[in-house]
């Protein structure tokens, strides 16, 4: 069965290549659907396949850049990417990320920040999950009230509407974001992206998990546009990350290319699935992914707190993440197939 293994020229290990393709498909589907890089899902997967930790992050980022490019291209054709908003937000993201990363280095000199960072991440994830499900509940309440009153609800109406208050801040320059359908001060996306970038820098994550809800709830993007625009940012930051990690000698391009084979299919499936699932369907699934991510961090914290059971908690955490990736990607895949079948049948009927 040697043919099932490929030698990695830089890391010097033999890797089970079908595993890389399957992992690529799974994270490609989820990434294209939610608009995030998904490093928290890929790194444990690469570790299981026997990838040295030193190369896991760099390789993940390199494949993420390619995968996000494919998904951004597709979302762009659907009209889900607001390039102007994405470019403006990039300024805040880059500056915020660097400030956050420098802050962590400064805090590290003062003491061990690892635990604090994990708790902060956990609090943030809990807040995001709470926000998403409060929004869903509020939206349902509004729908029921509209039904009782005999009024038809607007297709783009949402539960939580914080963005409407934020759009009242009229500090020049005011900018019209056509695809997102937003007219607001340029400072709003810059400030929000600075904040999300800063948090991502402190937590040491890509930031898609924070930026996606921020784009929806604070900037006021429709869900589909938030997903596409976030992917555009992930693509650029992924390329930058790939360059820096590769320059430090931490990327295994051969593995990244094999993962891209699967991710190119997965990203297309995930992106096309957004066509058949309404905004609130994406939001609910995203909330579930956030809960899964939070649970895996709780298990990692338990592993640190109880060294005797470390192996059990670490393995459960990895199993949880991979189980979540499999379940969600299968759900999205079947929804896409269902939608595509209906679309093809409808077209034939016409």
């Amino acid at each position: 069965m040697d043919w099932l293994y490929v030698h990695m020229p830089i890391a010097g290990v033999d890797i089970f290549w079908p595993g890389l393709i399957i992992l690529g498909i799974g994270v490609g589907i989820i990434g294209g659907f939610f608009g995030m890089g998904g490093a928290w899902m890929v790194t444990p997967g690469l570790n299981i396949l026997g990838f040295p930790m030193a190369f896991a992050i760099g390789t993940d980022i390199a494949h993420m850049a390619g995968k996000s490019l494919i998904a951004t291209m597709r979302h762009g054709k659907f009209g889900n990417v607001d390039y102007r908003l994405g470019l403006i937000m990039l300024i805040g993201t880059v500056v915020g990320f660097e400030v956050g990363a420098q802050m962590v280095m400064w805090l590290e000199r003062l003491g061990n920040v690892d635990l604090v960072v994990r708790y902060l991440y956990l609090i943030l994830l809990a807040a995001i999950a709470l926000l998403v499900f409060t929004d869903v509940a509020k939206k349902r309440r509004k729908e029921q009230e509209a039904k009782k009153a005999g009024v038809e609800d607007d297709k783009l109406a949402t539960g939580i509407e914080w963005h409407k208050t934020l759009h009242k801040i009229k500090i020049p320059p005011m900018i019209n974001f056509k695809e997102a359908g937003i007219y607001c001060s340029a400072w709003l996306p810059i400030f929000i992206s600075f904040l999300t970038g800063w948090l991502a820098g402190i937590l040491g994550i890509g930031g898609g998990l924070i930026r996606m809800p921020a784009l929806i709830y604070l900037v006021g993007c429709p869900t589909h546009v938030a997903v596409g625009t976030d992917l555009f940012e992930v693509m650029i930051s992924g390329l930058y990350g790939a360059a820096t990690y590769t320059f430090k000698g931490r990327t295994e391009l051969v593995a990244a290319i094999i993962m891209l084979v699967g991710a190119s299919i997965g990203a297309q499936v995930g992106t096309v699935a957004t066509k058949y699932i309404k905004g609130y369907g994406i939001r609910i699934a995203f909330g579930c992914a956030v809960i899964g991510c939070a649970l895996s961090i709780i298990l990692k914290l338990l592993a640190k707190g109880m060294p005797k059971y470390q192996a059990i908690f670490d393995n459960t955490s990895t199993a949880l993440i991979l189980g979540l990736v499999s379940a969600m990607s299968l759900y999205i895949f079947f929804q896409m197939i269902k939608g595509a079948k209906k679309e093809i049948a409808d077209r034939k009927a016409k």
Partner: protein
Amino acid sequence: MLINKLKLLCGLIGMIAALWPGFLLAAGEKAAAIVIVADTRGLTGLMKWWGSLYNESHAWFSALTVVLIPIIGVLFGVVADLIMSHMGIDLKSRELAEH
């Protein structure tokens, strides 16, 4: 028209001025790098060349990786596009709706 452009320019200058401290903060000291060397003794052909490039110049290795990743991404994306279009899926339009 000119006033609007001037307003936009002033706003952008203000924005850069406000963000400048962030750039300065970002220029702090970096963590020490660990040198990893690829073992190319058992490799042949393209793999050997790739491993040697890694050992000889990380700059060229990075430049090639950054160029290759988008090219491969676009190639795979186009192939997946062709397959999906062939299946009869409309890949150019969607309905924007939250519920």
